């Protein structure tokens, strides 16, 4: 059984990448040692009025140091993520992880892969790009301003799409794939639902194996409360209906397996 831990983590560094987008390194010990790309951690606020965890994907994993990197968006005023963004080196935060299944690395081994990220779905693609052993085409879509692009450039063939056309292909990630005539035998994707829905359709048309990372509101983060389900084709292991748990059975699913 995979090991999970709830612990206090010290913040190693925090940096603002863009207005509203922050990058935080955490000293997470055993959580980092167990983690694989595509997994996430639950981050808890210190504010007793905000009790539920904020699930945030792992952007980088440094097993040697026991460090984890998360890159996250502040969603608004007085939110939990805003509180995280004000934390500085040396502050501590409660976290639990590593949670979820992660991206299957074996499935992509030696193959030609698309790693697709959109918006705040971009961060988990970085650790995947570092660990995946195959031909990597990294296709990242942003509304306007970009983040993590230099890191992506160092870990594969990098393609960029922006909605406003300020950099790379004007349009979305699929426009970038078409404009550059890219092909692949496997897709890994994380991003907003409309993007995942379009990629699912694309993968089905082209008959490419496609893994998507899903999002849902969470309470326990470990598969007990049944808050975070998504509609699945297969019967789920818990209730034997068609409700897979994003926190435990996911967040990564075969695109053919889930309704997006």
């Amino acid at each position: 059984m995979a090991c999970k831990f709830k612990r206090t983590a010290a913040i190693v560094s925090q940096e603002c990448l863009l207005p509203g987008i922050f990058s935080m390194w955490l000293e997470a010990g055993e959580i980092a040692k167990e983690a694989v790309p595509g997994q996430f951690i639950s981050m808890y606020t210190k504010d007793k009025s905000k009790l539920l965890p904020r699930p945030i994907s792992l952007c980088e994993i440094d097993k040697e140091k026991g460090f984890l990197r998360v890159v996250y968006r502040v969603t608004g005023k007085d939110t939990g993520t805003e509180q995280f963004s004000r934390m500085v080196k040396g502050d501590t935060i409660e976290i639990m992880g590593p949670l979820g299944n992660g991206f299957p690395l074996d499935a992509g081994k030696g193959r030609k892969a698309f790693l697709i990220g959109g918006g705040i779905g971009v961060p988990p693609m970085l650790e995947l790009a570092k660990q995946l052993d195959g031909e990597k085409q990294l296709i990242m879509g942003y509304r306007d301003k970009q983040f993590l692009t230099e890191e992506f450039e160092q870990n594969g063939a990098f393609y960029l799409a922006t909605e406003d056309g300020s950099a790379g292909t004007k349009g979305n990630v699929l426009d970038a794939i078409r404009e550059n005539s890219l092909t692949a035998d496997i897709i890994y994707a994380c991003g907003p639902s409309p993007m995942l829905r379009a990629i699912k359709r694309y993968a089905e048309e082209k008959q490419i194996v496609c893994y998507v990372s899903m999002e849902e509101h969470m309470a326990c983060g470990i598969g007990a409360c049944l808050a975070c389900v998504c509609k699945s084709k297969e019967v789920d292991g818990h209730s034997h209906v068609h409700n897979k748990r994003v926190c435990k059975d996911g967040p990564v699913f075969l695109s053919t397996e889930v309704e997006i």
Partner: protein
Amino acid sequence: MDTRVTIAGVELKNPVMTASGTFGSGQEYGEFVDLNQLGAVVTKGVANVPWEGNPTPRIAEVHGGMMNAIGLQNPGIDVFCKRDIPYLKQFDTKIIVNVCGHSPEEYLEVVERLSDEPIDMMEINISCPNVNAGFLAFGQDAGNVEKLTAQIKKIAGRPIIMKLTPNVTDITEIARAAEAGGADALSLINTLTGMQIDVERRTFSVANKTGGVSGPAVKPIAVRMVYQVANAVKVPVIGMGGIATAEDALEFILAGATAVAVGTANFYNPRATIEVAEGIKDYMRRHKVEKLTELIGIVNAHA
């Protein structure tokens, strides 16, 4: 020091249980909690057949708590008996199975199945809507509560706990009805019906529109109701609603609860149950309390 409490002849090693629906059947929490250290594990509501539950989003955060509309998703009694009971039997703790249904027949079918199983008690969740009564919850009508309790008691073959909904005008009336129907114990409170609107999206925070509010925010209401019910009936009361610390649990015990359950707190502190149990022992040491039972309901004596 003696932390044991007895409910309907079932002796618990300590008064701390899990609140139904917040702990699954214990498997997921096994990595964080030694189940042997709990007074009892109360499992997620189980029905006669699998229930799909509600659409998502099923939960939302509220100030100091949460709101849920999971919709009682569960695998049905067959899978539950084959998988969850044998899992829990490995531990030295009491097993209390929470039962849900849409009609008396559905409840009775589950209770009958459970009557042969190696479990210690059943907890009947009467906050479910009754399809035969315009979807009013069973627990909102004293007459229905008494009748359902009596029907269940007849076939259960083991102690039954009726779990009361707080969404009523006078909870003591419902408590008395359950006692009159033959309930061996009462547990309360279930969640308080609430609503939250996401003003940015201009829609309800949970897809079901309404949800049950739980967590620290509801604790004063829960303590008040436990106090009222404990003073209205003779059967033991299990208190819950916002318990996160030993002090919270002790409030309920001093107000009249024989045992307590920890719910929402498990979500942000998976070891909450153990910390509550340990904290109660510390309190007993500090206040030189020999037997936990000495504390039950004594707030009255100090009034």
